[in-house]
């Protein structure tokens, strides 16, 4: 009589042993794919097990689809893809960006994150060690936020068809009752608040990619903003009209998009916008506008005049908003157009950059 089959012995005793790099088989859905999930992604994402606070959620098993228990209210759903080059840069990596970016898209609709998905497009030949470091960065970022990476997918493309590693993350979050934050709520009289200095992410990435030095250290500002938003909403539940994280295209693009969506004009004082000296130096050197440079840990808020001081104080009391400033106001004049008041008293129209002033930075 033969011994019973022991399924546990089927698992590879030396996981990922044959390959220090991604091979096409890692995307084939077979044993190699399973090994990658079991030995690389699962430990990195460290699923905490069933969340006692969310009975019914099975996010811990990292299956093809996750079941989420949703508290009453409205759901926010978003997706974003991350193609940054280089993958690691001062202050972070594509891993932190992939978590923070999607959490921030939820936060800018005032949603507290409930769960994320992670999709990976990997290039044949990518070092497993590098992928492991990216996954661990994602895991750490998600743990800091307190959001599970609940489901995922991996595909591998042939060498030369991708730039190492692309990540897509989607996220769902829940909006607190009574909160209504959307681009077209910005209204004449609103104050425009900015959570901190601009341009650090874009210049940090540029500095390592082009091997340029600008006379000072510059680190990406990548950070999750859901906590800052929660702090702002404690100051007023209804007064926060519009939130936006100024990523690609920078602050100028965010202001222009909101002005267009809400059919209002925006006026801001250029000298009120904090630009770190190293960002100013890099932009001066390369002929770039700091208003067009990407950020990954900042938000701009349009807040009812009566609530603006309280919201600004709440922002400054939060670690991710301690340098928050009021930069301008919303006006009924020149709807759709953003106007900057220059330091010398003149004015100019501020527009979005036409295309990319820099290649792929977020």
């Amino acid at each position, binding site marked *: 009589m033969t011994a019973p089959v022991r399924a546990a012995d089927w698992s590879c005793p030396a996981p990922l042993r044959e390959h220090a790099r991604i091979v096409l088989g890692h995307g084939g859905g077979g044993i190699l794919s399973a090994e990658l999930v079991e030995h690389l992604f699962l430990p990195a994402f460290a699923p905490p097990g069933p969340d006692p606070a969310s009975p019914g959620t099975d996010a811990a098993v990292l299956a093809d689809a996750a079941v989420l228990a949703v508290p009453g209210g409205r759901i926010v759903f978003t997706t974003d893809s991350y193609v940054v080059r280089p993958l690691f840069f001062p202050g972070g990596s594509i891993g932190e960006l992939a978590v923070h970016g999607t959490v921030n898209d939820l936060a800018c609709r005032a949603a507290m994150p409930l769960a994320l998905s992670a999709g990976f497009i990997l290039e044949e030949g990518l070092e497993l060690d590098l992928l492991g470091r990216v996954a661990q960065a994602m895991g750490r970022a998600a743990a800091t936020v307190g959001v599970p990476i609940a489901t995922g997918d991996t595909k591998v493309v042939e060498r030369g068809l991708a730039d190492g590693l692309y990540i897509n993350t989607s996220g769902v979050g829940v909006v607190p009752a009574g909160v209504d934050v959307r681009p077209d709520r910005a209204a004449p009289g609103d104050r425009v608040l900015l959570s901190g200095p601009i341009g650090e992410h874009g210049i940090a990435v540029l500095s390592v990619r*082009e091997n*340029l030095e600008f006379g000072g250290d510059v680190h990406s500002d990548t950070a999750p903003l859901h906590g800052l938003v929660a702090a702002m909403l404690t100051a007023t539940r209804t007064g926060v009209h519009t939130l936006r994280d100024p990523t690609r295209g920078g602050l100028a693009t965010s202001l222009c998009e909101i002005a267009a969506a809400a059919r209002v*004009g925006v006026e801001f004082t250029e*000298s009120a916008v904090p630009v770190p*000296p190293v960002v*100013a*130096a890099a932009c*001066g050197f*390369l*002929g770039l506008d700091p208003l067009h440079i990407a950020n990954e840990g900042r938000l701009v808020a349009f807040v009812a005049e009566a609530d603006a001081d309280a919201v600004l104080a709440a922002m400054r009391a939060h670690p991710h908003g301690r340098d928050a400033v009021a930069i301008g106001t919303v006006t009924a*004049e*020149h709807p759709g*157009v953003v*106007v900057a008041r*220059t*330091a*010398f*008293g*003149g*004015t*100019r*129209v*501020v*527009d979005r950059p*036409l*295309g990319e002033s820099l*290649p792929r930075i977020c």
Partner: protein
Amino acid sequence: MRYLTEFHDPRLAATLLDTIAATATRRWTLMEVCGGQTHAIIRNGLDQLLADQVEFIHGPGCPVCVTPLEMIDRALTIAARPEVMLCSFGDMLRVPGSTTDLFTVRAHGGDVRVVYSPLDAVRLAEAHPDRQVVFFAVGFETTAPAAAMAAVTARRRGLTNFTMLVSHVLVPPAMRAVLASPDNRVEAFLAAGHVCTVMGTAQYEPIVAEHRVPIVVTGFEPLDLLDGVRHAITELEAGRTTLVNAYPRAVRPEGNPSARAMLEEVFTVCDRPWRGIGMIPASGWRLSPAWSQLDAELRFDIADLTVAESADCHSGEVLQGRLRPPQCPSFGTTCTPRRPLGATMVSAEGACAAYFQHRRLSAVGGGR
């Protein structure tokens, strides 16, 4: 020197504005030669603040704007060849040629690279010995030394796969062309400071003397520009025609002798057509005969391209200061940065782009 803060100081600017207002007895017409100066003026609103004292006519000093159409078309033809890697400054990629632009060539498979320095193109040639690397050398005397340095470096390293498509242009002949125009209104020039950093100031003495026009060598930060205007107004009000160096922190009378020596070694002066303006005698640089093996026009067969400008583009009149961008019937309608008819709407230094980006409200009759 903390030029980003010190030369942007609003209090010092207010003092200079007061001085200019107290000095000017009438409105004077000044031409800032360089496109970088145009953008700084518009971006900081200096033209608004000086509206009662100065009419700025925006000069032809945008290298991207004046690069002749046939030269763009040659670059496009070369870039489309399978063995070629064409390297250029970023601004050139969107400049429309007769039928397409470098971005489109790249989207169709052409190998077009943006470089920050001509020496980056030399490095690419070293790293890719199987590719023909071509540097598209455009610009005024400011950028030419770096191109000359690239030629010298490529020869020193024995590279046989590096060539240059040279379309350098010279500022003083263009200023003479403006002054010789029958409808010239320019009463004083703000000369392009960085050109003078390389070439020095002596070449402007004969222009001042022959045309009885003050020339003020001027920098690019807001306070530099206001100081340049102050000097120009002072000269005009006093009835003097003098060459003034208002940018002494970057400009010496003799310029940069080593750069000039290298320019003289590598380039030779030639006639050059300026886009929108026409042929200006002795207004350009080409590779001198001793460097002809680096000449992309000889390496590749690009003879006799026929070219045609858009009839609706008035960039020539803009470049000569005869038309303000918003006065062009195409401005903001059929010609925008997204679909430029001419190079002045493309370049970061182009006057039309400056007005479109920063002055659209007044230009198209909106609010203020």
